[in-house]
Structure formats: C-alpha cells, structure tokens
C-alpha cells in the first residue's frame, strides 16, 4: 500500500540556516502521528513542504503517491491548519463557506457543531478573534474538511484546557468515523500523547526519533533508591544519566522492564518510573546535538 506521506533526503536551506537536513520519513495511511520538536526545529517547514506551500531545496516528497507541489489531485485531498494562517478580511462564516466548496468531503453539520462547542460566532470578523478563537476556527476547518491527509501545525495555540479537550475528543471521534492520515505538531506533548500511534521527533532539521508510540512507552525508566541497589540493578544496561544525592541515586535507564525486573526492583526497595513522552522528546532533542538518534543510542 502506498504510504500517505513519503519523504526521502529532504533538505530545505535558507540563506541563514538549514531548516530541514536530509529528512527521511514514511507515514502510513490512516494513522495519527505526533510531530514533535523544539521551536525552530523544522516542523512548520516540513508541513509547508508537504502541503506544497514551500519548495524543497533537494530531496523527494510524495503525498498520496505524488509530489504535492502544484498538484491539484493531491492538494484537494489535503488540509493544513497553520497556527499563523492568514485570512482575508472575512467573517468566520465566509471562511467556512470558502472551505465548503474547496473540499469535496466538507461536512457542514460538523463545522457548525464544532463552532458551537468552541463558542465561536459565525458572524464574527476573523480579525477581531482572539488567538484561541483563531485556533478554534483553524481546527473547525481542519476537521470538517475531512481531507485524506490532515496536517495540524500547533493547532491549539491560545486554546484553554476545555477547548483542547474538545479538540482531542472530536479528533478521535472524527478519526473513527472517517479514518484519515493525521500529522499533528504540538508542544503539549504529554497532553496529546494518548492520541499518537506514531511519534516523529525533529531537532535542528533532522529526524531524531521515528517510532511507534507503543514502543516508546516504558522504553526508558528512571530507577531511584539506595546507591548500591541502583547500581546493582542497572549494571550492564544502557544508562542515559546518573544522579546521586548522598546515599540515594537516580538513574535513567534504557530498555524495556520485564516482570522479573519489577519483582527484583521491589525486593531491592527501588522505585521504577517510566519516562513520559515529553521527557523522552526533551532528551531526544538534547541528545541529537552530539550523538545521532535516540534509537541508534538505545540499540547500543
């Protein structure tokens, strides 16, 4: 089956920086993927290239089997919701009407029910919306478009916790009703972690982690307790970081923890805490500077 998104050797250079550096990425159809990384890591550039709004310097990009740039057959099946989307001098209703005849699968009922959930008035001028309300408008367009490839770039900047929960719930419900390929870039990693089937981490223009989210859960664990017990438990295992405070130590250990390991930890009086996705991403981003990808390191 053709992947929804396939990127090989993608590089985008600007006069003052390399935004994307030899990116390789494959995203299967009907999956939800988290695109994570720091500000300026290259997430937005990647999404803009995938949607044909920007051009690569080199490399190949395929969306739904074809290069997206200037390709109507791809672009009408794709939607990109950008945090910084510019709108003409429109009211909310104008933007939705324009979207309604541009997207073949547009669901007008869904759009109005999302507006209601977000408390957004259709008659309001877009330029007078708050940041959160603009995000709500972007999310409404992105979900109601029911596009085969749905790209969200930081879709919920300025949204309150309740509205964000509405987004997660509606995204999952919509995904169940009308499965599509979703690529979602976000900074609120732990909050959105449950949505992701796959996780891609970009740092300084390079992909440093590209893996199934399930595989990540429990892959890295913090072991803490008495120094001697910690050392004995982690002996011979790859270790990321070691901290000591008097007779206590805390070690970040890589690798799955078996039932047997848990039993042993309990008998040694150790605490095992799995690293959250967010902590993993922070480390993957930090590590990229000197040491290749997280997956490379952990296989050592």
């Amino acid at each position: 089956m053709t992947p929804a998104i396939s990127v090989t050797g993608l590089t985008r250079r600007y006069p003052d920086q390399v935004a994307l550096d030899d990116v390789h990425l494959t995203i299967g159809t009907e999956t939800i993927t988290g695109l994570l990384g720091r500000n300026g890591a290259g997430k937005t550039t990647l999404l803009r290239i995938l949607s044909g709004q920007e051009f690569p310097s080199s490399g190949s990009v395929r969306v739904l089997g074809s290069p997206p740039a200037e390709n109507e057959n791809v672009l009408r099946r794709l939607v990109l919701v950008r945090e910084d989307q510019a709108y003409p001098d429109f009211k909310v209703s104008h933007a939705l009407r324009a979207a309604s005849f541009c997207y073949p699968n547009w669901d007008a009922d869904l759009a109005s029910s999302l507006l209601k959930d977000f408390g957004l008035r259709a008659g309001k001028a877009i330029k007078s919306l708050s940041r959160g309300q603009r995000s709500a408008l972007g999310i409404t367009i992105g979900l109601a478009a029911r596009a085969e490839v749905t790209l969200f770039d930081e879709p919920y900047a300025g949204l309150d916790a309740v509205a964000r929960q509405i987004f997660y719930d509606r995204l999952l419900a919509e995904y169940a009703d009308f499965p599509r390929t979703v690529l979602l870039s976000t900074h609120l990693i732990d909050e959105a972690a449950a949505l992701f089937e796959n996780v891609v981490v970009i740092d300084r223009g390079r992909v440093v982690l590209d893996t199934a989210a399930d595989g990540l859960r429990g892959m890295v664990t913090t072991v803490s307790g008495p120094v001697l017990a910690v050392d004995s438990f982690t002996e011979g295992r790859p270790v990321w970081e070691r901290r000591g405070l008097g007779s206590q130590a805390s070690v970040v250990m890589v690798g799955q923890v078996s039932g047997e390991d848990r039993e042993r930890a309990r008998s040694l009086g150790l605490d095992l805490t799995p690293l959250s996705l967010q902590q993993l991403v922070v480390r993957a981003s930090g590590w990229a500077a000197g040491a290749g990808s997280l997956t490379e390191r952990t296989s050592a």
Partner: protein
Amino acid sequence: MNTMIKVARYHLVTPVMFLGLPWAPLAGAFAFALARDTSHGGLVFIFFMFFVTGMQRIGGRWLPFGLALGATRRSFYAGTALLGVSMSLVYGLVIAGLQAIERATGGWGLSITFFRVPHLLNGPWYATWLTSFVGLSALFVYGMWYGIVNRRWGMLGLLAFVAVQALVVLAYFWAGLDRPLTSVSALDLTGVIAALAVVFLAGGHATIRRVTV
C-alpha cells in the same frame, strides 16, 4: 477549469468587496464633478481601483488562505485573472452605458464630460466598451504582477521592478520611438494595451510559480 471557478467563487465570498469597491472612488469623483460642474479626469479612478484590486487579491492575504484551501498557484493565478477579466468585460459595458446616458442627457444636464475622454473614450459605444475592457483587464493583471513581486521579493523587489520598467520606458523615449498620443488612433492604442496585458499576464504567471506562503 474546475479549480479556476472555485478560485473565482472564493473571491466572491464577499461580493461587495470585489464588485463594489472599484465604484466607490468613482462615485465620489462623479459627485464632485457634478457639484463643481467640472469635466473629465475622474474616470481614471475606476482604472486605478482595478490595479489596486488586482494587487490586493494576490499580494494580500487572499493567496495564503487560497493555497491553504488546496488551490495551486497556477489555478489561483488563472482563476483570479479570469475573474478580473470577466469583471472588466461587464464594467466596460457599464462605462459605455453611462457614456451613452451622458451623451443623451447633454452631460447630465450640466455639459459635463465625465465618462467621455477626448480621443481615447469618445467613439461609438462598442469602441468605448472594447477600450475600457482592455484597459481595465490590463490594469488588473498589471496589479496582480505587482502583488506577486511584493509577495516574493518584498519592498526591495518592488522598487527594482519599478526601476526596470522605468529604464524600459526611458530607453523607448531615447530611441525616439515615441509619437504624440493624438497621432495614434484609439483602436491602435487599445491594441497596444492588449499586447501589454498579455505581457503582464505572462510575467505574473512566471513570477508566481515559486511564490511561497
């Protein structure tokens, strides 16, 4: 074609902004002409507004949202130009109609020649229609080209764009190719403007191909 129509519909989501805007300054100028009992000159406003509208539709925020809705640059360009040219066709006819009324009413009862421009727009209705249609279209696509240059290269790009054109015009005069306007018939001039419009259209098309949003 289908996407071009979608782009045209997109521009007409707020029809007043597109259809009404070019007339507002013209209406003001006409009211002024009536009140002061002065004559020609004010008609230039509608041509100017076509230039501004063309520039704004592609240089402003219409393009980024249009591309976000899945239009390609090519179809956005073609659809916008198609709409501008269609509007020129209709508005050219309106100008010809207003000119006929002006003639029939003896210059709105005040001997005003607002919709008649000596030599250029002073012939039969169909000549006025043709010349205004070509002039409005040319200014619309000319404005589009400015908008695209601005989006692609910013203010410096615009300045360079104007400078290059100024050099072309100067070279034209230095080479002694210029002739007094009155020695050229309105129809010939219309032909020259139509040829320029084609150049503008091709130039804008070449410029938009690598625009990013």
